[in-house]
């Protein structure tokens, strides 16, 4: 919700005509602070309209407006009326930039570069478009051909922009115990004693089986898989300097 002072400012400052904008811009160039204030306040509507478009549930709308206003101020300071554009045409890019930067920095705990986030949304939109067109989920190669980026880059971008969830986040507002952490299965062997015993037994059998290998066989397997010699093994196959070099 917007505060009353902000609404009052908007009401007191109706939209400007192109002529008024040019006059104010010329005054600003001469250092008129009141004109600057007037041009800023008269364009708050534009800020709200753009901020609404980029607002996400997890973000504070007031903060979003504040950050987008920074873009408006930049636009006011850099607007050149001699180019012939309307102020709103110029300002909307600066406001969008500030709004997107705020979204980028605050919508996730991990900051992802803006270009990566933009590419991510481009990829996702393309996936939806291809799904609708072909009636099936597109492969990464298809998306890559359409967007003109490599499969590796697409994979990396999708991975980097994955949403993260806190393990401590409550799944049920009424219960503090219903966290994601409590729902994650403990798959370690220690949570299942039977599995632990089975695993131990299998381990012993495998170790016993390894004893069946002749030194030559053991040596070749060691060479093949880069397993270094046991220092305490006197029966082990002799290791030459060349072998050590290879290993």
């Amino acid at each position, binding site marked *: 919700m917007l505060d009353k002072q902000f609404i009052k400012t908007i009401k007191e400052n109706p939209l400007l005509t192109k002529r008024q904008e040019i006059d104010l811009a010329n005054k600003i160039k001469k250092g008129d602070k009141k004109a600057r204030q007037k041009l800023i306040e008269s364009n708050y509507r534009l800020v709200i309209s753009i901020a609404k478009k980029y607002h996400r549930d997890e973000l504070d709308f007031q903060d979003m407006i504040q950050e987008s206003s920074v873009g408006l101020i930049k636009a006011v300071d850099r607007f050149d009326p001699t180019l012939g554009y309307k102020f709103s045409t110029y300002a909307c890019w600066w406001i969008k930039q500030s709004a997107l930067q705020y979204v980028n920095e605050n919508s996730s705990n991990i900051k992802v570069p803006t270009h990566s986030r933009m590419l991510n949304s481009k990829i996702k939109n393309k996936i939806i478009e291809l799904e609708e067109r072909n009636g099936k989920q597109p492969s990464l190669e298809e998306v890559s051909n359409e967007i003109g980026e490599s499969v590796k880059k697409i994979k990396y971008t999708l991975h980097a922009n994955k949403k993260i969830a806190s393990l401590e986040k409550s799944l049920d507002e009424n219960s503090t115990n219903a966290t994601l952490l409590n729902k994650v299965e403990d798959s370690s062997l220690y949570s299942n004693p039977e599995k632990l015993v089975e*695993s131990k037994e299998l381990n012993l059998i495998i*170790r016993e*089986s390894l004893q069946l290998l002749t030194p*030559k066989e053991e040596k*070749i397997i060691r060479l093949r898989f880069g*397993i270094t010699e046991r220092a305490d093994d006197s029966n082990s196959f002799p290791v*030459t300097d*060349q072998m050590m070099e290879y290993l």
Partner: protein
Amino acid sequence: MNNKKYVTTNNYEGMGYYDIAKVMTENGHKMNHSTARNIVIRSFSKIVKNISHKYNKKYTEEQIKSIAKSPQFQNSIVEIMKGYNSEEEKFN
């Protein structure tokens, strides 16, 4: 023309069969690359046979060879040989 291709997944920093054969030959065990490969498969087959025997499983020679050749099986055995397999060992 021989179209046979050997596909082995080996994520370890080990040696190729040609290099193994060379090292073994230099150490008095004359062999070529295919012998080295056959010895690797034979060794893993020995392990499969012993494990299946312990668990009273009766596999055919073909099945044993197929298990011995599988990268998953080979990787597991190698991990045990390296002493990293057991979760217990990691903690202790």
